């Protein structure tokens, strides 16, 4: 009996009128967990009932605690007929299961009905008493922390990065079960919501098990996705990076002695894995190693050859040897990574020194035919599919001379029975110092040589054996290693990178018609089209990149969507000018038939236009690469060829000032042949891109190079557009429409957010879909952040991002120190699990047990915290104080409370909750992560016109989803959601029947942040307080 869940229903407000006669409601509440249900009394005739119920107690397995949501149903009592449901609240209690996350859920939560939307609010209190049964830890993985953030969370330090974790569970979709024909839409929606809740919980628990097995205590970059395969079922899958994280506290030395505990994973293997869950959904996988022998039961499967988007140019070049050090390094890290089946990391930002070299983007796609998942217990086909793709990615990375893939993500697009599985990432070489093998001295020496600003640009592959045509030059920063001419990546711009000027969002958009087909024929058609689509997207990206005078792409995300009669491709990335890379050549237009004079004229006009645009863009994005003259004197240029090249570009740009930057060597110029109709289109596409209005910048990465002084004004938003194509169009016509759709959407965003100027739209995340034939849906989620224009004014008040970066580097210093320690202690596992606890000292665990049973706050204490606790109590000169730790008022808790009370004074009784897709909040410090928010909602209507048509319906729904996310975060005690994303927004309509349905899935990390200004003012007091209370704080 490892857990007791307690819930108390306090009150309701703003309830809908359920009894027309009295204009009132007789409300009562059902509280359900698993198969146990409790009821409150009926509170008669009120729209603001005060139930003030007793504590409802559920005694449950921790496995169920992880899988099941707490389900609260508000009903209207009716003496004569059946009670009417007002709505429901699902509460994910997972945040309460982790010692470092939230301790209580308390607050007003919206009551939600899938037909009517939000119908009032309910005030609840939920707590969990978790008993640490030390012999358990079999099926449950309580205590593993989950983060959606794709970097090391701000108040943690990465002790170890273990690697890739993945899992998927499948089930039948209730919407497609026979029973759906006879039940109400509400019942069907609720069955679906509940099932997905259960599946998410189960998935998370299983991932957690894998993490524990690997010796980690957290998952970073947790990405969970749904595949609504229709008739064939429902797949929930997730990937993440297993890490061992440690909370950064001011009392550092506690970590100095690492326990040499025996690995808990060993015990894990001995334990029986069987115990099938009592829930509807199952998956066979309990270990990260898959049986490779799983046969494909599918009739059809096509793997699509994919391009390596690494760099591009017109030929290779000979150069200096990369040096033996690099080879040595590769060998060492190779061995560390080769032990892993998939050396993949869904992270997009890394602790400094982790990312050594970046090869380029690797991606793989495959087209599959879906058929019904016959046995949900054996989702082997789905697993085998992903395994294929991952193998392909792995081999692509190898071809680039890399052992790891970072910024890794997986996605699907489904149309009828055809499914495209896609995976992409960035091939890279990583430092082994975060890996289990432990750091090596040689590597450290090697790293010292490389400057952090350009090191990651240096090619990881053997230049004599380049896997693709690339033009290599010596790094423009250090002049010692080779760099490619263009670099594409899926990761965020490393904070330490040297960048010239500012960046901008670059999108390639493509729409292709295809014939209607069925089954295998359809799959063949699609798989034949895919390579062309990818090639064209790549060309467009490259053109647009050059048009902006930039040489690298970050955060590249290519989405391909399939419909009955068309394919959509959308590639988004943030273009920057990396100082280390050579200046890009211009774009040159050439005609094949130079006889005609008017034609020549036409070409030169176009050429001029392009040149003008490039020049304008360079000015706009402040791209003035530093002149290389001094460097030529200062740094050793080893090769004459290189020198001549440099001289040329330099001399030309100084001699012919009027001649625009095409002058960067005709040799480098990207030639477009105008006779090619595709090229004409490309050029048009290039020139029709709408320039961002003055005062605006945009990117799809976390931060914008060149902008640092963010103000605290942020605005997260979601915008959705659906476009109907009425006529049969050519591919070109479609292309134009699709491109205009995206451009117009951006224009609207700029207009909407004009009051925030100067501002930057960060993390612009576009998703496209073809919900129906002739419909294109584009959804954007991003955050607009204002910044101070005057860089000079910034001196006095330190801006948010700058201090954040500073904080990171400070952490890094601590981290380095810690790493050295790590190197000395052979066992790299300071795993903070109660498992470890039992093995270290009986006196400690015995005490911990008593604490666990007596005090809720100290449940699930980790070994390190116990140590600190002990130190703390000793310092206090009393051993009995453990249970009184609660009274010691844990600092973050105390602060959050005071924050909330402050807010309530400001006139509004509703706490403000910030939301952002980024991992940080400008001008603020995240002091606590409360757990992940992962919510799934369905909304349906049969009175579409009355609700304001499709736009009115979706507008309300999205606003409601935001409101529910905010309310749940506030109930956890948080004041912000970071790394927020809307991963699914499936919209279906039937205007003839006046009906519409929409599914939305959102996720993020609930956090408590404190404004830096507040922090500074109180820092003196808290500093001293922290040393005393932080220990206690972590115990809660």
């Amino acid at each position, binding site marked *: 009996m490892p857990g007791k869940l307690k819930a108390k229903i306090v009150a309701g*407000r*703003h309830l809908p009128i359920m009894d027309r006669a009295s204009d009132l409601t007789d409300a009562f509440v059902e509280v359900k967990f698993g198969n146990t249900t409790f009821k409150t009394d009926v509170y008669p005739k009120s729209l603001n009932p005060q139930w003030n119920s007793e504590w409802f107690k559920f005694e449950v397995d921790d496995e169920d605690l992880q899988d099941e949501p707490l389900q609260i149903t508000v009903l209207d009592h009716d003496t004569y007929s059946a009670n009417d449901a007002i709505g429901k609240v699902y509460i994910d209690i997972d945040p309460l299961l982790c010692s470092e996350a939230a301790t209580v859920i308390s607050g007003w939560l919206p009551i939600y009905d899938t037909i009517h939307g939000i119908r009032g609010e309910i005030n609840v209190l939920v707590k969990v008493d978790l008993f640490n049964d030390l012999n358990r830890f079999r099926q449950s993985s309580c205590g593993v922390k989950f983060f959606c953030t794709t970097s090391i969370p701000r108040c943690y330090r990465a002790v170890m990065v273990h690697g890739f974790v993945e899992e998927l569970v499948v089930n039948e979709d209730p919407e497609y079960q026979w029973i759906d024909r006879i039940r109400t839409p509400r019942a069907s929606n609720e069955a679906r919501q509940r099932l997905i809740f259960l599946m998410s919980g189960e998935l998370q628990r299983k991932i957690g098990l894998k993490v524990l097995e690997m010796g980690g205590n957290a998952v970073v970059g947790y990405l969970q996705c749904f595949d609504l395969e229709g008739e064939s079922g429902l797949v929930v899958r997730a990937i993440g990076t297993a890490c061992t994280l440690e909370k950064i506290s001011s009392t550092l030395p506690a970590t100095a002695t690492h326990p040499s505990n025996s690995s808990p994973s060993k015990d894990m293997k001995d334990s029986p894995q069987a115990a099938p869950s009592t829930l509807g959904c199952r998956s066979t996988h309990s270990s990260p190693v898959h049986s490779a022998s799983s046969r494909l039961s599918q009739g059809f499967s096509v793997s699509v050859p994919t391009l390596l988007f690494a760099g591009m140019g017109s030929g290779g070049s000979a150069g200096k040897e990369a040096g033996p050090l690099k080879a040595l390094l590769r060998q060492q890290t190779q061995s560390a990574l080769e032990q892993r089946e998939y050396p993949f990391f869904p992270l997009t930002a890394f602790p400094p020194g982790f990312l050594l070299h970046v090869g380029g983007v690797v991606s793989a796609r495959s087209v599959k035919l879906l058929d019904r998942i016959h046995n949900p217990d054996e989702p082997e086909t789905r697993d085998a599919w992903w395994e294929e793709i991952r193998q392909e990615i792995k081999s692509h990375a190898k071809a680039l001379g890399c052992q790891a893939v970072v910024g890794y993500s997986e996605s699907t697009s489904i149309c009828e029975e055809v499914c495209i599985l896609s995976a992409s990432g960035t091939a890279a070489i990583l430092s082994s110092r975060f890996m289990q093998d432990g750091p090596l001295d040689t590597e450290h020496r090697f790293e010292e040589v490389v400057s952090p600003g350009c090191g990651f640009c240096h090619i990881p592959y053997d230049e004599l054996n380049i896997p693709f045509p690339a033009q290599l030059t010596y790094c423009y920063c250090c002049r010692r290693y080779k760099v490619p001419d263009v670099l594409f990546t899926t990761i965020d711009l490393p904070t330490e990178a040297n960048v010239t000027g500012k960046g901008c969002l670059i999108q390639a958009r493509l729409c292709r018609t295809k014939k209607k087909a069925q089954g295998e024929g359809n799959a063949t058609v699609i798989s034949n089209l895919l390579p062309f689509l990818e090639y064209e997207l790549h060309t467009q990206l490259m053109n647009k990149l050059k048009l902006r005078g930039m040489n690298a792409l970050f955060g590249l995300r290519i989405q391909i969507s399939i419909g009955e009669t068309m394919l959509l491709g959308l590639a988004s990335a943030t273009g920057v000018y990396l100082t280390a890379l050579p200046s890009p050549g211009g774009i040159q237009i050439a005609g094949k038939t130079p006889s005609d004079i008017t034609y020549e004229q036409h070409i030169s006009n176009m050429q001029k236009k392009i040149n003008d645009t490039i020049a304008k863009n360079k000015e706009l994005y402040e791209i003035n690469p530093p002149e290389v003259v001094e460097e030529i004197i200062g740094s050793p240029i080893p090769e004459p060829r290189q020198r001549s090249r440099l001289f040329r570009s330099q001399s030309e740009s100084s001699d012919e000032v009027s001649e625009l930057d095409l002058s960067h060597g005709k040799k480098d110029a990207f030639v477009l042949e105008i006779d090619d109709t595709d090229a004409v289109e490309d050029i048009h596409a290039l020139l029709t891109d709408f320039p961002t209005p003055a005062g605006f910048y945009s990117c799809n990465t976390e931060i914008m190079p060149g902008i640092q002084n963010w103000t605290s004004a942020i*605005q997260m938003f979601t915008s959705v557009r659906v476009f109907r194509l009425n006529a049969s169009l050519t591919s070109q016509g479609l292309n134009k429409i699709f491109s205009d759709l995206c451009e117009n959407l951006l224009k609207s965003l700029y*207009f909407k957010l004009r009051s925030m100027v100067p501002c930057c739209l960060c993390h612009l995340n576009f998703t496209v879909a073809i919900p129906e034939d002739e*419909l294109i849906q584009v959804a954007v989620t991003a955050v607009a952040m204002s910044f101070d224009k005057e860089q000079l004014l910034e001196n006095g008040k330190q801006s948010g991002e700058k201090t954040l970066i500073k904080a990171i580097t400070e952490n890094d210093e601590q981290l380095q120190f810690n790493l050295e320690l790590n190197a000395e202690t052979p066992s790299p596992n300071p795993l903070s699990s109660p498992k470890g606890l039992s093995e270290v000292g009986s006196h400690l665990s015995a005490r911990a047990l008593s604490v666990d049973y007596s005090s809720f706050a100290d449940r699930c204490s980790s070994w390190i915290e116990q140590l600190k606790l002990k130190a703390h109590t000793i310092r206090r000169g009393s051993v009995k104080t453990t249970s009184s730790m609660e009274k010691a008022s844990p600092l973050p808790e105390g602060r959050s409370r005071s924050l909330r009370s402050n807010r309530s004074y400001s006139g509004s*009784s509703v706490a403000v909750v910030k939301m952002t897709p980024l991992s940080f909040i400008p001008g603020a410090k995240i002091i606590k992560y409360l757990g992940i928010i992962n919510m799934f909602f369905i909304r349906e209507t049969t009175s579409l016109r009355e609700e304001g048509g499709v736009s009115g319906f979706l*507008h309300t729904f*999205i*606003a409601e989803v935001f409101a529910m996310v905010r309310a749940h975060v506030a109930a956890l005690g948080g004041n912000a959601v970071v790394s927020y994303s809307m991963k699914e927004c499936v919209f279906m309509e039937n205007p003839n029947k006046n009906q519409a349905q929409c599914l939305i899935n959102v996720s993020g990390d609930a956090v408590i942040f404190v404004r830096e200004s507040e922090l500074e003012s109180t820092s003196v007091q808290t500093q001293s307080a922290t040393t005393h209370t932080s220990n206690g704080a972590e115990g809660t």
Partner: protein
Amino acid sequence: MSVELDVFVGNTTIMDKEVYQLWLNGYTVNDAVKVRIEGGVMEECEASAEVLLSDTMDQYRTFQMCERLLHHPAKLANQLLFQFHPQIPPDRQAMLIERYYAFDDSFVREVLGKKLSKGTKKDLDDVSTKTGITLKSCRRQFDNFKRVFKVVEELKGPLVENIRQHFLLPDQLARDYAAIVFFANNRFETGKKKLHYLTFQDFAFCAGQLINNWTLGAVDNIMDDMDVDLDKEFLQELKDLKILITDKDLLDQHKSLVCTALRGKTNVFNEMEANFKNLSRGLVNIAAKLINAKDVRDFFIDLVEKFIEPCRSDKWTSIDVNLYLTHYTNSAHILDTFKHHAVWTRYMGVIKSCILRMYHD
């Protein structure tokens, strides 16, 4: 090819004040776009008409979603659907409410004193044509009146305070609504041609006087009392004032006292002297009749006909009127046989300030 769906939802709700006003004024989306284009917002932000249309539709939808809450402004403070800008939530919400409940003086003049019934609502299109205010806006204003009326009708305690608390309105607006509710409840006639020259603010002022002095709540501070109805007991007592005109001695005595006081202080002394009996009869008759609900309705028209018009035709200035009414009121207290001092003061205090307010062109 058409945009089938187009929404924008921010974590903090973006509301453009200008568009809000256009929406309140009942402009259609297309008309609002035209107004905005003329306003020059496009040049300012490099936008196109298309963008403006999308933005306007979006804003209109937001306002419509918000309207439900604006009907119960107290809910706006603890609703969860909209998150307003964290720094200035009270300001922004107050602005939303204030503007939503704001009304046009020309509109309110049309419905002031009318029963807030379905019948009146049906006639709103006439009002709309007459005033040039869009029907939509007329309906909103009318519904606001009706909503406030319904809520405060059943509440105990001071009227203005009730309105302010329930609808979170600023003081002045709450007073105006109190006037509207008071007029609607007592069905004062305000539409007659002779009253056309009076503005809503004139009536609101008078309503304030009546509420503060003539209702039950005015004398009694017990919570049970209501501000909406006139004090019946007081109206009954007003009948006693008739003695001032029925008793010939008293009337003459009153006249001579007033004339003595006024002599040499005004240019229209002769007219005053000549008209004294007429004017006095007028005012006292109004008082005596107020016990009948029907005559209450004619209160303002009576004031104009019986007092203001005669004075005006004799070219009294408002200083003259003030002077006259002051002495007229005070002199009555010196009369030997006149015993109803309290009622007289209560009556004449209001009459004097109402007449002074209404005495203009």
